[in-house]
């Protein structure tokens, strides 16, 4: 089993989360086993797998919401000294449109953990939320209702909410589902930029192979016989992918982007 480090750079990156022989499931139902990998600071990791294979289960374990049934998960402390802070971007479809909240209202929720119990968001929180909206290019939409925004814009508001928390790790669950090419491009370019400019550690989970392999630097496949984090070039050879999926898969470059076809 290969273990890849984020370091193309000579300096060793800090491990943030380490899974060792982890088994995940609910009650008697075992969903995933044999998970061993490390997420390093500054990683841009994509986890690819079909629906139903356990992506959500793995995410929950990464976030610390689900305890392993076997094996061990170790986490580094967050930048502030406490536990790791996650910026979580859920699937857009899970958000209920009916709530009459503005974009700023939604982003402000990302600050609630930092604000803490018994207190209200203050000027700093508002400023940070507006800054996050600016980071995603939606500063002008702060006072618009979330439900009046387009799908791509809503996705960006959810990203701003995750960023407003000043997270150690940005986690995105199927960020481009149901999007047209333009919106998908805009979303992934934004994630690329956030990773590049802020050195943010990014974890993207998706079932869309081509979306992931065109952007991330490391990739792991769920549902495959062995789960391993590999540099994307190594993991996306035609041989590896064909073996993984059991059908012939060709990989090429189009406009400088890695593309797989089957």
């Amino acid at each position, binding site marked *: 089993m290969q273990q890849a480090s984020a370091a193309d750079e000579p300096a060793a990156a800090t491990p943030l989360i380490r899974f060792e022989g982890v088994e995940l499931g609910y009650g008697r139902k075992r969903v995933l086993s044999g998970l061993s990998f490390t997420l390093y600071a500054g990683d841009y990791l994509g986890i690819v797998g079909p629906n139903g294979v356990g992506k959500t289960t793995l*995410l*929950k374990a990464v*976030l*610390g*919401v689900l305890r392993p049934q076997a094996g061990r998960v170790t986490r580094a402390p967050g930048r502030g000294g406490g*536990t790791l*802070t*996650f910026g*979580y971007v*859920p699937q857009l479809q*899970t*958000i*209920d449109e*009916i*709530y*009459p*909240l*503005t974009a700023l*209202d939604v982003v402000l*929720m990302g600050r*609630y*953990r930092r*604000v803490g*119990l*018994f207190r*209200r*968001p203050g000027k700093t929180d508002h400023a940070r939320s507006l800054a996050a909206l600016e980071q995603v290019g939606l500063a002008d939409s702060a006072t618009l*209702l979330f439900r009046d925004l387009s799908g791509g814009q809503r996705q960006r508001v959810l990203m701003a*909410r995750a960023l407003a*928390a000043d997270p150690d790790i940005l*986690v995105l669950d199927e960020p481009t589902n149901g999007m047209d090419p333009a919106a998908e491009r805009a979303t992934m370019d934004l994630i690329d930029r956030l990773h590049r400019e802020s050195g943010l550690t990014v974890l993207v989970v998706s079932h869309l192979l081509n979306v992931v392999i065109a952007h991330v630097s490391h990739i792991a496949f769920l549902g495959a016989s062995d789960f391993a984090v590999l540099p994307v070039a190594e993991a996306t050879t035609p041989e590896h992918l064909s073996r993984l999926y059991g059908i012939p898969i060709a990989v090429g470059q189009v406009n400088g982007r890695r593309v797989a076809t089957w």
Partner: protein
Amino acid sequence: MFASIQEAFGSDFMQHALLAGMAVGALCAYLGVYVVLKRIVFVGVALAEMSSAGVALALWTAGVLGLEMEEHNPLTMVGAVVLMLVGVLLFSVRWSARRVPPESTIGVGYAVAAAAGLLLMAHSAKGEAHVMQLLFGNILYVSVREIWEFLAAAAAVALVHLLFAKELLFVAFDPQTADAVGYRTRRWELLFYLTLGVTIAFAIRVAGVLLVFAMLVLPPVTALLLTRHLRRAFPVSAALGVLPVGIGLYLSYVRDVPSAACIVIVSFALLLAAGGLSLLRRA
């Protein structure tokens, strides 16, 4: 034909009814915003029905034990709260979630509670009158002590919502993300249901199932039609829970018709007006 307001509200019981109604209306309308947005309207009516079954159960138990208990006895409160808690627990567990949608538990709870209440009261001396009162509102018979009890419960509920408004909102709007960033979403959900349940249990004794349920639904829907932002929907809804009470009680006095029903119809009239306004705005 039309009595003066002074005449209508000159008596003690009308004043008590007004106070009780406004308190119940305000609090239920506030919580109702959550109930409507979380799409748990049916839970509201089921909890109300279970609470009143709890009152019936307490009275029946008293009868069986040979105790004399009239319906204003504080022990009925125990019955209402206990059954309310049973309801909250029942509705939060996903029974056989794969085979049967969770929502059905709520329907079962409602139907069984309604039937149980009727059966328990069937042989009591006051029987049907009790049940009618529980269902349609005994706001004109409310005692001062019951008003105080409701106000105390309301104060506790209001305090919880004042302190934890943002957490409750986050957990309602996006429970998945709340979970992911470290909130114990289940506990916050439970806290919300407890505040809802306590409000309902104390309110039905004062106002009856019909009025309580109506206040959980009509004012919030009206408020959501009238306002664009959630921040404003809460206070507008509370105000809309208060306004119809005075008007409805006055009309019920003048026309000599059941008061709870009157209040509900006035509330509905406000809803229609808001709906009309909303349509006009769009045009």
